[in-house]
């Protein structure tokens, strides 16, 4: 599969470009306004960045541990509440709280994996699924219990909208988008260029083989889960300024994130980012093309098409 990739890459790009062009023309014809189309593209990219951001941690954990982490959204919410509290009580800039939330979530991830999930590794996959589902429910309801059901929000003083080509974008969303790009680059470098990253990839490719060459597989599991959770933490903090924070806010992103993970190729961090962008664009342009329908209709049409044509995902290669 990898051997014929260079050959088909150009063709694939050409097809993709043609599809994009057709969609843009149709959207323009449907709405009759260039501004609507450029706004849809801009919003789609920014939103897609956020989807990718949420999906990155999820795909990392799936690729290495083979666990579908149903607690991901809830962990993201923990970070949001961290940001809300630090910003409103300690008066920190919301983005500065990243220095607290990401490490804190890293710690929580480590504790969860070493204390709970590691005990179920190697047993039936349903065990891990039920465990993460349970952890997610537990976290969500503890948050509901301790912070109440009142929605909260984080105020950012400098949230002026940016303008380009008649389209507007909130600064907070642009920052989240850039954060997604940064995080993807960071994870990529970590996985490809460091010894730890190489070990993680070895464990993902073949846990038994990795153990034979002296890698502590369980430690790598803990580390990977913690990294994935830290990503959820970063995502939570980065989206906090433009969402209404409630105990279930993280869950909102979860369904889309699962779609993005499968679309991008499970375990592929860059695939998650590209998949996120694709879904974001599809949702927005789909909304313009079919104004009376749910924007998710277009998303799931694309999803089914991709599954049909490339069941392993866009960047599929199980890592």
């Amino acid at each position, binding site marked *: 599969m990898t051997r014929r990739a260079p050959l088909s890459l150009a063709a694939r790009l050409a097809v993709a470009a043609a599809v994009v062009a057709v969609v843009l023309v149709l959207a323009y014809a449907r*709405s*009759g*306004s260039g*501004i*609507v189309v450029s*706004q*849809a593209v801009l*919003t*789609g990219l*920014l*939103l897609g960045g956020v989807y990718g951001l949420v999906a990155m941690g999820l795909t990392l954990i*799936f690729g290495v541990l*083979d666990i*579908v982490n*149903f607690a991901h959204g809830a962990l993201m919410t923990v970070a949001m509440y961290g940001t809300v509290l630090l910003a409103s009580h300690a008066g920190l800039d919301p983005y500065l709280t990243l220095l607290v939330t990401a490490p804190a979530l890293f710690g929580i991830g480590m504790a969860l994996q070493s204390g709970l999930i590691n005990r179920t590794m190697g047993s039936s*996959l*349903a065990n891990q*699924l*039920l465990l993460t*589902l349970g952890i997610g429910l537990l976290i969500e309801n503890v948050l*509901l219990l301790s912070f*109440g*059901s*009142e*929605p909260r*929000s984080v105020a950012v003083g400098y949230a002026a*909208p940016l303008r380009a080509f008649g*389209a*507007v*974008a*909130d600064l907070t*969303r642009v920052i989240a988008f850039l954060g997604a790009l940064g995080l993807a680059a960071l994870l990529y470098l970590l996985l490809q260029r460091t010894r730890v990253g190489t070990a993680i990839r070895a464990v993902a490719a073949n846990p038994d083989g990795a153990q034979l060459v002296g890698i502590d597989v369980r430690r790598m599991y803990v580390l990977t889960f913690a990294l994935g959770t830290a990503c959820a933490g970063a995502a939570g903090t980065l*989206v906090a300024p*433009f*969402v*209404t924070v*409630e*105990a*279930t806010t993280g*869950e*909102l*992103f979860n*369904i*889309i994130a*699962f779609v993005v993970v*499968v679309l991008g190729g*499970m375990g592929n961090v860059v695939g998650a980012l590209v998949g996120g962008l694709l879904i974001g664009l599809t949702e*927005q342009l789909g*909304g*313009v093309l079919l*104004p*009376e*329908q*749910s*924007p*998710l209709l277009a998303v799931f049409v694309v999803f089914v098409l991709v*599954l049909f044509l490339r*069941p*392993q995902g866009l960047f599929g290669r*199980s890592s």
Partner: protein
Amino acid sequence: MRNLRLVGLLAALGVALAACGGSAPPGTTGQEGDQQGGTIKIGSIHPLTGPLAFDGQQMAKAGKFAAERINAQGGIKSLDGAKLQVLDADSKGEPEVGQSEAQRLIQEGAAALVGPYQSAVASNVAAVAERNRVPFLIDVAVADSILEQGYTNTFRIQPNASSMGTKGADYLAELAEASGTPIRSVAVLHEQTDFGKSVLAAFKARAEGSGMKVGPEISYDAVNVSDLTTEITQVKAEGVDALVVTGYYRDGVLAAKAISSVRPDVKVVFGIANGAFDLPQFTSDAGKAGEGFFDANYHFNARDPEMRKLAADFKAKYGEDIRTSSVLAYEAVRVIASGLEKAGTRDPQQLREAISGLSLDTLMAYPGPISFDKTGQNTSATPIVMQVQGGTVRQVFPKEFAEAEPRFPAPPAR
């Protein structure tokens, strides 16, 4: 490929698991039976967890608060001072759970049910109430269809979707007329379920009847929408006079933020049955972006001294500002209490008779007392118009409920 199938399987399992949740909280069962005096149980079903917990929890508190106040004044006098006891149940926002909880509450001896905040849950609970012949008071649930099934045990205190849409169109036309600002074209942004669609349909019929052009109609998925900028840009490109928004809280805040950054040239942003624009916390969550927004919605009567006392007492006890949905839950328990008072028995069918013939003064901003027609709809239920003025939600129209003059037109804040 193996992984894919696995994910599908796991996801299906997750859905199945989520669907079969919903066990009864222990320790809510009382022992006393049918003797006079003692307690009378009222089942209260609201979403206490999940995304709607914000409103559901306060509504549950308000129902309990009503019972406490009635008990403190001597309980149900025609039943030897019997005390009301409100049993809470969590619908989790899911129709199936609401249905099984309704069944459980009736088995535990509830003389009447109150709830449930969502139309889909209301439909299921109404069916259970009908089968068991127990009165069911709907505090909040808007769909017309709930009362179109020929049920005789279900009553609704709030206005239904079509009257909200129709009255919304009337109010918009009247406000425009009174201020001399013509509104000729209206764009509608609405959430995509039954709620948004039925309000829109009623609004559209009435607005087009009075000469407004309605369109474009843009829908979104309130459950997982996280940005409405493109939708508002479509409104801007259309160059309409007014924007009507129907939806819930979170999406209402998103709409306000998108409106403030896109800046469509509309003369007014007019919510109809909007779950955000008339809530106190909307003014802090949306900030300046929400200034001047109207909302045609059911509302408690802020000019009524008794209502002001309730709000103050509620705040003193729970530390929260009471919202209209909770006042409706409070009213539902009051309706049951005065039904019991009038019936002089706790037999559910005689209670039903008493409720259907009731006429009860209300804390809601309705033009008359609560009384139900044959279908169970409260005939006095009417929305009024609120506006965000200087960071506070004020009642502005019609005149008999106005706390302040409407500011019309009110283009979105720059």
